[in-house]
């Protein structure tokens, strides 16, 4: 894995047509401007995980009513 240090305002290039610029550093987060061809998919990694979890949530393995009963049990003092 290549690890680079960049400062605010600096950029890097991947291949011929993907450009990534650090536009802002702020309190532990970094803002990036990405210039890439339209056909390149750019997704925050956690969104892929979130979509996977949503798909799992759409196919329950047990009855929601059974879960409700369990939750009520937890809910009562």
């Amino acid at each position, binding site marked *: 894995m290549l690890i680079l240090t960049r400062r605010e305002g600096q950029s890097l290039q991947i291949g011929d047509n993907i450009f990534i610029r650090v536009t802002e550093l702020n309190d532990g987060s970094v803002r990036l401007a990405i210039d890439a061809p339209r056909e390149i998919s750019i997704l925050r990694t*956690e969104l892929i995980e979130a979509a996977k979890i949503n798909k799992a949530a759409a196919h329950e393995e047990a009855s929601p009513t059974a879960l409700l009963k369990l939750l009520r049990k937890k809910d009562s003092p």
Partner: protein
Amino acid sequence: MRIQTKYFGAVELAEEDVLFFPDGLFGFEEEKKFVLLPFSGEDDCLLCLQSVQTPLLAFATLNPFFFWSDYRPCPAPEDLERLQVEQSESLCYYAMCVIRDPLINTTVNLRCPVAINPDTRQARQVMLDSYDMRTPLPTINDPPSASPSSPSTPLSTEGGANCPSPNPKGGASIC
């Protein structure tokens, strides 16, 4: 309007029951309209987020404040802007469950709750910076962490700082 649902057969709805998700849900970007239906009577502990467009698409969602009293969702400013609110407490939140067999292995996605503006009925699934996408259910012996006693209290819009604590009752009413 009448829709077919995954769990309740045909259900009659008013137009104002519909929640609008302009960006859909993660992985379900084409699904723009949902309704929240209680699984059991008036009990809003577990609700069904049912697609209006796709009868077989529905999610079990719960009110996170019932079970995690210290839950403080803090969506990104862009999310608040899209939902046309200034602060997190103006929104209702519901967390989606992945129901497993055995039930005890069920997890709750506290990181990506569905946030709803109850005034406009605009909604979106948000990605928080904190909380786990696979939070285990609270254990049976845990005391209830939030007061379930006044679930239909309207939202409070009081509040303060940048990421203030939402009213624990905030997600409790069916929006």
